C-alpha cells in the first residue's frame, strides 16, 4: 500500500469512527422509555408531603432550574431547603437560578433536547404548549390524581390552570397570577376635572380623559405599550369583540371588523389623537410612567413601580375599561414543570405540591413575591405592603376581584414564538407609523396567520 492510500484509509477510518460515535451519542433517545407509565408503588411510609414511592434515604443530585433573580430566588430557596432537609436529607440539590428570562428560554431547550434535563423547571405560559407539544414535559395528571394537592383545582384560578394545559392534560402547576391595570399619575390627574376611571368606563371615556391630559410632546394622556407586545393587547381585542384565532386554532380572526377596530383604536391613540407617546419618545425610556411623561399607563399588577417611583409623584391604580362586547382583563403567569426525561419525577412533583399548595409556603411566596400566588384563598399575601397600602386602597379590587371576574387567557398556540414573529413584523408597521390603516395590516396578517396555522396543524 502506498503512503497516499494509507493516509486516505486512515482519514476514512477517522471520519467513520467520529460519525459512529456521534450517532451513538445522539441516538440514545429511546421513545418507548418515555411512554412507560409512571409507577406509584408505595413502599415507604407516607407523610403529608411525600407519596412514599421514593426511598427517603435516596442519594444523588436533584436539579432545579429557574429564571428567578438573585433576590427573588431567596424565598424559593428557603422552602426548597426545608423540604429536602426534612424529607430527602441525602439528596444533594443543584440549583441553577439567576438566568435571565431570555437566556433561560435558550438554555432549557438545549438541556431538554440534549437529554440532560433538570428535575424541576420554571415554566411560562407563553412556552408551555411548545414544550408539551413535542413531548418534552411530563404530564402531571397521574400525579395530581394519585396525590392530589389541597384545593386542586377548584381553589386555583381557572385561567391559570387552563393556561398550563395542552390537549386536556396538565403540564405545569401555576405559581403566580399576574394581571394588568391602569397606573395613574394623580398629580397630573388633579389638573383635569374628572373622576378616576372605574370598571364601567368605556374606551371612549378613557380617550376623552387622555386628550385632556395630553400636553404636546411633554405629557401624554395614555400609554398602552406597543402593538408588538401581543399578549398585553389581547384583552383590548376581546373587549371590542375581536380575536386572534377561532376556538380550534385553525383559522385567523384578524379579518373581523371588531379585531380591526381594536387595532385602529390603539393606533389612533398615537398617530391621530396624539395622546400616546410615539416610538421615538419611548425608545430609550422603557418606563415613561416612572419618568413622569405619561398620565395613565397600562401595566402589570406588580407594585414594581414602588421602588422606582420613590416619592416622585402621587399615584394610584384603576381598572381597565370595558368595550362594546364586555369587559376583559389581561391574565398571565408562570408555573413549575417536570421535564419528560427528569430523573426524580416523583420527588419533583412532591416538591411542587409542597411549595404551591402548602399554605405556610404560599404565605412566604406571596409576601416575598410581586404577584398574587395561584391559590385564590391566599390572595391577601400578595397585596401591597408598607406605605403602599394607603396609596393603593383599590389594589385588591383592580388586580384581584375584577381580574377573577373578567380575566381572559391569551390563546397561546404550540408554535406561539414563531407566530409572534409574524405578528410583530406586521404590527410594527402600525406602531412605527409606516402604515396608519389598521385594516390593511390586519388583512395581511390574516393571510399570513392562516398559512401559519394550516402549516402548524398539518
Amino acid at each position: 500500500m502506498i503512503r497516499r492510500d494509507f493516509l486516505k484509509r486512515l482519514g476514512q477510518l477517522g471520519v467513520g469512527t467520529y460519525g459512529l460515535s456521534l450517532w451513538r451519542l445522539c441516538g440514545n433517545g429511546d421513545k418507548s422509555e418515555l411512554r412507560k407509565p409512571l409507577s406509584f408503588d408505595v413502599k415507604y411510609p407516607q407523610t403529608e408531603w411525600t407519596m412514599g414511592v421514593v426511598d427517603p434515604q435516596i442519594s444523588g443530585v436533584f436539579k432545579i432550574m429557574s429564571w428567578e433573580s438573585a433576590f427573588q430566588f431567596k424565598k424559593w430557596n428557603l422552602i426548597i431547603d426545608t423540604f429536602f432537609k426534612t424529607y430527602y436529607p441525602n439528596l444533594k440539590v443543584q440549583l441553577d437560578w439567576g438566568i435571565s428570562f431570555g437566556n433561560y428560554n435558550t438554555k432549557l431547550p438545549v438541556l431538554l433536547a440534549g437529554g440532560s434535563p433538570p428535575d424541576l423547571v420554571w415554566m411560562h405560559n407563553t412556552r408551555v404548549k411548545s414544550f408539551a407539544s413535542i413531548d418534552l414535559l411530563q404530564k402531571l395528571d397521574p400525579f395530581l390524581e394519585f396525590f392530589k394537592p389541597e384545593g386542586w383545582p377548584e381553589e386555583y384560578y381557572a385561567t391559570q390552570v387552563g393556561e398550563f394545559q395542552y390537549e386536556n392534560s396538565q403540564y405545569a402547576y401555576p405559581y403566580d397570577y399576574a394581571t394588568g391595570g391602569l397606573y395613574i399619575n394623580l398629580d397630573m390627574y388633579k389638573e383635569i376635572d374628572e373622576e378616576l376611571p372605574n370598571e364601567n368606563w368605556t374606551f371612549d371615556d378613557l380617550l376623552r380623559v387622555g386628550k385632556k391630559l395630553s400636553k404636546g410632546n411633554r405629557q401624554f394622556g395614555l400609554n398602552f405599550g406597543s402593538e408588538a407586545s401581543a399578549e398585553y393587547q389581547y384583552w383590548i381585542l376581546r373587549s371590542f369583540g375581536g380575536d386572534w384565532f377561532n376556538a380550534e386554532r385553525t383559522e385567523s380572526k384578524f379579518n373581523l371588523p371588531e379585531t380591526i377596530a381594536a387595532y385602529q383604536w390603539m393606533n389612533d391613540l398615537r398617530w391621530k389623537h396624539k395622546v400616546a407617546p410615539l416610538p421615538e419618545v419611548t425608545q430609550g425610556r422603557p418606563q415613561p410612567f416612572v419618568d413622569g411623561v405619561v398620565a395613565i399607563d397600562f401595566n402589570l399588577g406588580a407594585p414594581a413601580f414602588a421602588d422606582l417611583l420613590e416619592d416622585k409623584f402621587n399615584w394610584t391604580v384603576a381598572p381597565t375599561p370595558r368595550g362594546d362586547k364586555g369587559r376583559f382583563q389581561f391574565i398571565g403567569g408562570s408555573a413549575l414543570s417536570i421535564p419528560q426525561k427528569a430523573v426524580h419525577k416523583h420527588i419533583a412533583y412532591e416538591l411542587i405540591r409542597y411549595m404551591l399548595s402548602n399554605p405556610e409556603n404560599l404565605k412566604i411566596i406571596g409576601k416575598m413575591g410581586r404577584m398574587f400566588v395561584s391559590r385564590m384563598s391566599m390572595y391577601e399575601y400578595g397585596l401591597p405592603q408598607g406605605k403602599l397600602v394607603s396609596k393603593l386602597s383599590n389594589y385588591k379590587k383592580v388586580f384581584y376581584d375584577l381580574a377573577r371576574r373578567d380575566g381572559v387567557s391569551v390563546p397561546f398556540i404550540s408554535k406561539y414564538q414563531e407566530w409572534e414573529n409574524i405578528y410583530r413584523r406586521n404590527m410594527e408597521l402600525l406602531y412605527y407609523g409606516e402604515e396608519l390603516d389598521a385594516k390593511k395590516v390586519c388583512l395581511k396578517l390574516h393571510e399570513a396567520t392562516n398559512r401559519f396555522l394550516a402549516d402548524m396543524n398539518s
Partner: protein
Amino acid sequence: MLNKSTYNNIADGFTYTLLIIFSVIVVLPFLWMILSSLKTAGEIWTFPPVFLPKKFQWSNYLEAWKALPFDRFLFNSLFVTVCVTIGQLFTCSLGGFAFARLRFPGRDSLFLMYMATMMIPFPVLMIPLFIIMQNLGWIDTLKSLIIPCLFSAWGTFLMRQFMMGIPRALEDAAKIDGCSYWGLYWKIIVPLCKPVFATLGIFTFMGTWNQFFWPLIMINTISNKTLPLGLVMFQTRIAAETPWHFIMAASCATILPIIVLFIIGQKYYVKGIVTSGLKG
C-alpha cells in the same frame, strides 16, 4: 500669512481637540457605568437622565458583593481564561507551524477543511457538543469551558500566516545543525513569533473572558459560574425590578482585571491590531 510654527500649533490644537472629543465619547459609557453604580434604583430610571447621583451610594458595592459570590465568579473566569489562552497559544502555534512549515500530503486540503469549520455557526454545533460533554460527564465543570475552547481555526490561521513570513533559510540552517521538528518549533519559530503570540493571546483572553453563551449552557451551579453569568443573576423578568445599580457596581468591580491586563499589554494590543488588521 501663518508661519510654520503657528500652523503646526493650530494643527496640533485641532488634532488634540478631536482626540479629546473622541476620547470623551469612548470614556463616557464607562463613566456612566461608574456613576450608575453609585445611584439609587430610582435615579437609574430618571428621565431625562441625571449624570451625578444625589448621594453617592457606596453601599451598592457591598450589597452586590454580599448578594452573590463575585470573588468566586472572578476566580472561575480568571482560571478558565488563563487556561484557554495558554492552551490556544500552544495548539494554534503547533497547528500553524505544521500548516506553514511542514510538507505532508493533503496539508492544504486539511487546512481548507479546518478553515471551513469557521463557517459553521455555533448554534448548529451546540447540541452535539452538549451531548459529547454530557457523555464525558463534564456538564457543570470548568473542564467543559476549557477543553473544547483550546483549539481555534482562526488562531491557527493567524499563526500560519505569520509563520509563512519567516525565511525558510533559518529552518534549513537549523536542520543542517541537526535540529528536530520540535526543536525547530520551540527554538526557532516560537521566539520569532512573539508579536503574533501577543496578538492571539490578547484576543483569546478577551474572547474567553466575555464568553457567555457556552458557559450559560454548560454551567448549572453557582460555584462554577463565571463573571458574565454572575452579572445577569440580578436580572429579573420585569425590567423595572432589575437592580441595575447593583449590576453596574458588580460590573465596575469585575472589570478591573481586564483593565489592568489592557494597561500591561497595551503595546502588544496595538501591535496586534497592526499585525492582524483586526480589533477586539
